[in-house]
């Protein structure tokens, strides 16, 4: 049943293409219904699977001569992320209700992207996972290049090339693993239990991990993220930050770390005090956290602040993965959900509520408009999202960051200090953005800036914002809801190699 999340999105995309030209309203409604249907299926499956263990959805031979199967399966981690995808899909459509130009093309690409994202989260065969992972690239490019804003063609191409380079690295690693294991199967389960040689894992792990981590915004391969996010139309930045970056993190966890757990083990030597790939990536993740936050602190463009904040928050996820302890890994998955919801909301406020009305994202121009009085709803939404992103208790961000912090404390006590610094910087840049954009008491108020009142926040936007805030609060108040399925998934036989290796 869960497989229908994929099919229904693809069918929706195909149906949109067949609509007659100019049918804007029906295109929107069709897209929204498709996204709601996908979410409903995901929710039903989530409620149904209370144990969080891996359950096969579909398994049929696909290319028997190569041992490739069409194998979809879901455990607690995939279910959680599928649910997140459903929420982001719906709200993304609500926040692009105003797209007038080539509406049906826009939503067709959008649903194609959503369907492929569902596919990645549900694939249990590496070949299949890779197929979906690459399908994601193309609609992303067109969404940004066609409907984007600032330097859209540059941003779109940069994003596409970065993603493709990353997936090329993954492909090399996968082919090598497949052939080394006797080229009989591409099943994740079988390959995860294949005893690859230590030497092989040491080489393959960084290759595949970095390949996926490029999409997760690992410093220094993050540069596509701010430009891509800023260039993208609102719905596309929500998807990019909300779920596409999670694909990278998910790939790191599900493929790179599961296939090559020995690659995380210590080297026989030390370079600059680093003794394993795990140390290297943990340091890079922390640099990402601090760097993203510091750069966000000095931006003049509102959307760039959010773009760099994504880099910072994705650093938390990668760091959580590198802690290799239960609480850190669960925290990483929680942060995927939390950041998905919050980045979606932040981009929605900046891109749709503010930019689409004021046509500027420069702080010094926004400051003159007294936005807290002109569009109070946007201000409230941003304050709430900002509080959640800072990690205030009661929101999803708090739980996730706390878990990662504890995990880091166990694994890398020294780095925990820097993570704390990163959290403080997070408070500062959100505060600064909030103050400059919404609550700047402008003394030089010119009458010219008020000659036209800003259009009020529309109903779809309100609904979308409320859904995202509610989801974040729900996760923040009752994290057990997700942890109940994430923890058992991390204890499943699939992660055995990782546990036996260096799990603490």
């Amino acid at each position: 049943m869960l497989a229908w999340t994929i099919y229904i999105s693809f069918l929706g995309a195909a149906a949109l293409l067949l609509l007659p030209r100019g049918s804007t309203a029906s295109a929107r409604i069709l897209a929204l219904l498709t996204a709601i249907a996908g979410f409903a299926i995901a929710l039903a499956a989530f409620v149904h699977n209370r144990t969080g263990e891996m359950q096969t959805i579909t398994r049929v031979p696909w290319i028997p001569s190569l041992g490739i199967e069409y194998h979809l399966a879901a455990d607690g981690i995939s279910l959680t992320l599928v649910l997140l995808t459903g929420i982001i899909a719906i709200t993304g459509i609500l926040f692009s209700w105003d797209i007038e130009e080539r509406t049906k093309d826009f939503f067709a690409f959008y649903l194609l992207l959503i369907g492929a994202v569902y596919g990645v989260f549900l694939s249990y065969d590496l070949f299949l996972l890779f197929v979906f992972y690459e399908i994601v690239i193309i609609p992303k490019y067109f969404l940004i290049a066609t409907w984007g804003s600032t330097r859209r063609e540059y941003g779109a191409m940069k994003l596409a090339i970065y993603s493709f380079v990353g997936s090329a690295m993954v492909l090399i690693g996968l082919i090598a693993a497949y052939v080394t294991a006797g080229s009989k199967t591409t099943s994740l389960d079988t390959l995860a239990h294949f005893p690859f040689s230590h030497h092989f894992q040491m080489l393959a792990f960084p290759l595949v991990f970095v390949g996926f981590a490029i999409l997760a915004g690992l410093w220094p391969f993050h540069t596509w993220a701010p430009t891509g996010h800023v260039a993208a139309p609102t719905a596309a930045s929500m998807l990019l930050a909300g779920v596409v970056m999670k694909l990278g993190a998910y790939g790191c966890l599900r493929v790179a770390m599961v296939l090559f757990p020995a690659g995380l083990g210590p080297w026989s030597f030390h370079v600059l005090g680093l003794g394993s790939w795990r140390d290297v990536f943990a340091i890079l993740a922390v640099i990402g956290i601090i760097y993203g936050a510091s750069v966000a602190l000095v931006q003049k463009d509102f959307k760039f602040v959010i773009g760099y904040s994504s880099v910072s928050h994705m650093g938390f996820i990668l760091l959580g993965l590198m802690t290799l302890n239960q609480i850190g890994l669960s925290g990483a998955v929680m942060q995927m959900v939390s950041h998905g919801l919050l980045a979606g909301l932040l981009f929605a406020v900046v891109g749709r509520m503010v930019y689409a009305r004021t046509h500027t994202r420069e702080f010094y121009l926004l400051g003159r408009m007294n936005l807290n009085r002109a569009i109070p709803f946007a201000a409230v939404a941003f304050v709430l999202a900002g509080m959640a992103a800072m990690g205030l208790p009661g929101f999803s961000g708090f739980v996730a960051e706390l878990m990662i912090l504890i995990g880091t404390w166990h694994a890398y006590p020294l780095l925990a200090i820097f993570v704390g610094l990163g959290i403080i910087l997070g408070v500062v840049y959100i505060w600064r953005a909030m103050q400059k954009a919404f609550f700047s008491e402008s003394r030089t108020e010119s009458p010219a800036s008020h000659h036209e009142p800003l259009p009020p926040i529309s109903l779809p936007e309100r609904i979308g914002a409320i859904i995202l805030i509610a989801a974040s609060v729900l996760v923040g108040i009752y994290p057990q809801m997700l942890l109940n399925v994430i923890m058992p998934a991390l204890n499943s036989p699939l992660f055995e190699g990782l546990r036996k290796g260096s799990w603490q």
Partner: protein
Amino acid sequence: MTSINYAQLLQLALPQVIVVATALIVMAVDLLPLRRSATRVRFAVAATLGSLGCAVAILRIILAPAQANILDSTLIANPLTHLVQIALLALTIFTLLISADSDFTEHIGEFVLLILVATAGMMFLVGTQDLLVIFISLELLSLSLYILAAFNKRSAQSWEAALKYFLFGGMSAAFLLFGFSLLYGLSNSTSLAVIAATLHGPSLNPLLVIAIVTTAIGLGFKIAAAPFHFWAPDVYLGAPAPSAAFIASSSKVASFFIFFQVMALGFVGVEGTASLPHVVRGWIPVLALMAALSMLLGNLVAIRQTSLRRLLAYSAIAHAGYMLLAIVAHTQQSLAALIYYVITYALTTLGAFAVIAIVEEQRGSDHLSNFDGLSRQAPVLSFSLAIFILSLAGIPPLAGFFGKFYLFVTVIKSTPNPASLLWLVVLAIAMSAVSLYYYLRVLKHVYVAPPSEHAAKIHTPLLTQIVVLVLAAAVIILGCAPNLILKSILAAIQSSGL
């Protein structure tokens, strides 16, 4: 030497005979009853007759699959040759159908005749393992292609392209013949199997080295591998669209197949290795070098192109580089990968040229800016073009992706130590990441750029539209379910024991 049974010979060559007979019929019909009819009618009739002839030949191969090996492999019929011949005939049918709506020439009978004769040449080419027959059928193919490239007599570009093609082709044929004569001198036979048996030995004498290099040059020219690619951009640009499509698709299938056979069957024992840094002399390092050069040059130069045809030419050079890897690997599985790759690649290029032909005819040239906003004026055509381009880029779930995946897997698997050819595969994958840039640029013009104001509405002839859609569907279906043809390719290779 066995005595010749002419009845059996004729029976084996019957599909080729059917194709040639069709060619003559088409010529006669076009010259006698239809002489005064409109170009459109004449082309439609000639293309239909030609396609019917090819269809009959396909039926003959399917219904009466003979297995034979006459005169020390001079003429061979086995499931593998049948499979490739069927593919060639099908590609010819598609070529004829997309040319049916064009009007670049009045000599329609001759045009269709040349295409069919070239097809017959290719069918002989894949059905032999004898140097002499290989050379003769290769020349039959090449001479037809030179004329086809020059067929648009109104265009100076077409002349130039053909002349270039002819001059380079003549030279490469000389190289090939030189290599073949050395091989004959070394082994006293023209049969690949006998040559292999004679050459077998640890020593690599200088004559053999020359034979290897000149043979590789001669055949490398046919597949447009760097550094013997100079004709490709001009021919792709200058030749009339159907000719260019034919040169870019069918002739590639036949040439790659015979290249593989000559190398894998004829030069047994002198392979050498291309594993860095311990290269052993032989033909593998030569081909590995050609492959690496083609991938680098094709992909890097394609970035700068502004004409879609030239872009496709450089991308063809790059793809020739990828496909050469299969020959470097020379295992049964890599042959299967090569056949899958080259057939799907041929379908893709054919479709792309069909779209180019339409846009060119209505907007004047194949410059990328003429594709601006195509998606809003011809959605079906643009969708198909997007499928073809993305398949060339290797995006799943299209045929180009599985082709690459399978090819790379078989190449790594071909040696006992998976790492020895890894550098070539890494280069290929890295270069295909580069290629996404220029392929996306094409699609940017089609989907993102707004149409220019004075651009006329695109009118697509119904037949071409159907053919293009069928080709796009084939690329999608073969990509989603590669097993459809992979199974028969593997079975054919198994039973032919290559």
